[in-house]
């Protein structure tokens, strides 16, 4: 009995106190690594392709695009990239532990909203000389480049762009008596369409859905509604939240009304992210603010439009992941070879665009695959009107499961109350830390 007691307590201990100690154990082993190996700045425009093995980490939501890119690269180069896909929720912890121990992979992607912080912490090598050498530098997505630029030095290139768009299920629209070819142009029309789909009272079918317990999903889908009507979400320096302003209030009240009317998928209330798009993908939701990367894996006929604001307009969250060479990479010149290939027309058009993904170079937006699918043209057009918010403490303020942003939204939408300015003040307090 005594033995059982000791073992059990130890195990709890491991789960508890040692959560931090384990990370530390790894962290304590390294520390004095500072790049070394080949210097990325002297790698030349295309880097080195000498049969090295490169490691690359990315998070699970972008697994499909990452695999396509890596497979295409490996097929045509001597260098071989080994891809590791990490579950979304564990990614920061994994990168953090590796960063502390000098064990980062050669290349790693980061959610673009975390990039400013991670670049600031020195996790990426300076790529400005290489990026400035690219002839098409000015057409690379500006939001992603800006997020990775500190003191005028660019560290990060766009890996996969993920835009939030308004998707609607054409079949359900037709059944509900709506025009399946016409997107709602304001948030109020969006709500009306959702209610119309709901009014069919079809079993298991709902008007709309959202990740109401998922800070990242809400940032991704609701910020554009504010931008579309000319509102702001953050001050320019990323230290002050403007999510208590009038445009934002209209967004909350529209969703509050939708929630009360019962036109929102009920499991949205507790949805923390892993399955926030599942119901739409299964054809059970009329319309939804949805990630454009899922266009190719949505198996039925959908319409795509920019996200409308309370007074019309259209915008999008230019999300996705940026990628750079890690501070610990000893094969920076080889890693640059992958990055420069990734930005090439070959990779952008024949890999990404072919998979119906958004290209990260504006000069390639009108490619042959986009021309064949008008929805891609729409996505590329809206991409130009989109935005990427930049703030150092973005994760803690918005994406974290206990973030003040989540508290604000849930108070406004689900509880129809709460002190908006106080909740907004909490976000600002975290941003200022």
């Amino acid at each position, binding site marked *: 009995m005594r033995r059982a007691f000791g073992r059990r307590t130890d195990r*709890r201990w491991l789960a508890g106190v040692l*959560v931090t100690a384990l*990370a530390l154990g790894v962290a304590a082993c390294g520390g004095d690594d500072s790049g070394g190996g080949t210097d990325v700045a002297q790698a030349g425009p295309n880097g080195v392709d000498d049969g090295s093995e490169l490691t690359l980490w990315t998070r699970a939501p972008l697994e499909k695009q990452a695999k396509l890119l890596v497979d295409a690269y490996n097929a045509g180069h001597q260098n071989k990239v080994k891809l590791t896909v990490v579950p979304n929720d564990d990614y920061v*912890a994994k990168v953090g532990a590796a960063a*502390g121990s000098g064990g980062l992979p050669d290349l790693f992607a980061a959610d673009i909203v975390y990039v400013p*912080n991670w670049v600031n912490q020195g996790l990426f090598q300076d790529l400005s000389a290489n990026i400035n050498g690219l002839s098409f530098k000015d057409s690379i997505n500006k939001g992603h480049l800006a997020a990775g630029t500190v003191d005028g030095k660019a560290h990060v290139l766009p890996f996969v762009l993920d835009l939030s768009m308004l998707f609607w299920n054409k079949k359900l629209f037709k059944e509900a008596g709506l025009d399946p070819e016409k997107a709602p142009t304001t948030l109020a029309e969006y709500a009306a369409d959702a209610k119309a789909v709901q009014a069919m009272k079809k079993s298991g079918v709902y008007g709309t859905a959202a990740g109401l*317990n998922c800070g990242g999903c809400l940032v991704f889908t609701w910020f554009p509604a504010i931008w579309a009507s000319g509102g702001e979400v953050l001050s320019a320096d990323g230290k002050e939240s403007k999510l208590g302003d009038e445009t934002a209030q209209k967004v909350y009240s529209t969703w509050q009304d939708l929630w009360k009317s019962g036109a929102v998928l009920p499991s949205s209330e*507790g949805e923390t992210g892993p399955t926030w798009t599942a119901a739409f993908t299964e054809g059970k939701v009329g319309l939804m603010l949805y990630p454009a990367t899922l266009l190719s894996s949505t198996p039925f006929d959908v319409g795509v439009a920019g996200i409308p604001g309370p007074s019309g307009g259209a915008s999008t969250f230019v999300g996705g992941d940026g990628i750079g060479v890690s501070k610990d990479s000893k094969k920076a010149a080889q890693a640059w070879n992958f990055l420069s290939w990734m930005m090439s027309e070959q990779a952008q058009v024949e890999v990404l665009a072919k998979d119906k993904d958004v290209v990260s170079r504006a000069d390639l937006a009108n490619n042959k695959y986009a021309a064949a699918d008008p929805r891609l043209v729409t996505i590329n057009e809206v991409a130009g009107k989109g935005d990427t918010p930049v703030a150092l403490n973005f994760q*803690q303020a918005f994406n974290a499961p*206990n973030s003040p942003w989540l508290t604000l939204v849930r108070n406004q939408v689900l509880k129809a109350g709460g002190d908006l300015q106080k909740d907004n003040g909490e976000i600002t307090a975290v941003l200022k830390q």
Partner: protein
Amino acid sequence: MSTNAWPRNRQALLGWLYATPTAVFVVALFVVPLLLVIKMSVSRWPLLSGDQGINAPDNFEKAIDHRFFIDSVVFTVKYTVLATVLLLVLGLGLALLVQESSRWNNLLRASFLIPSALGLASASLLFYVFYSPYASPLAPLMKSWGFTFLGSPTAALVSTTFLIVWRYAGFYMVLMLVGLQGIPADVFEAARSDGATRWQTFRKVTLPLLRPTLALTTVLCVTGSLLAFEQFYILTKGGPDNSTITVVQLIYMVAFQGQNDLGVAAAISVIVLVALVVVNALQLRAFRSERS
């Protein structure tokens, strides 16, 4: 063990030899991490940039001022009381039920114990699906009642406690059963021949003689519940609306989900460790003094 055959110092050497593997593991897996956590708790130590030098006692101030610190302590205590009472009462009840031999004995024992064979994380995942208003077999029921298992703070607490009771009741049953079987049968016989009723026997004979087992199970259960993590991490993620954040979850959040500050996380860990030592010491003392 026969001791005379061995010279004393040789026996001592052998003793050390036997103890060495355990000692090595204790030092490597317990003492060293413990010292590192203590060092971390007095250092500025961001997740992404590593050790930045001593800054005591900033981390402890930040830990106590954290906006979820008080909430998480209150919730953890609430959960601990609920889980401990339920598990001990149920464990004892089940043990009494299967103690007396009957035809269904083995079947009952096995069915109570089977959930213990499942890891807590796997059990939590199982219940995650079971409670999901989307994928659960109970989804139609939830829809017609307008109720979700994890939708409100109280429902989330009760649902998670149910999982824990399901998972651990069998384990505590076994512990209680061992205790019950350690009570000599003649004591019961004496009570019976004195004309004691079943209830009197339970109150005056079984419970007092079960005290060491009760002490063990209480300490186990309280410690385990105060360190609750997996079930809440998987089922509720601290939600809905930050109502189910346990202390260990707070440690994880501070370390890896946003604040990314290992120093503050280690400070909370040290606070929890001290609290646990105090709580366990008090419990053991309480049981001992009542006994004497």
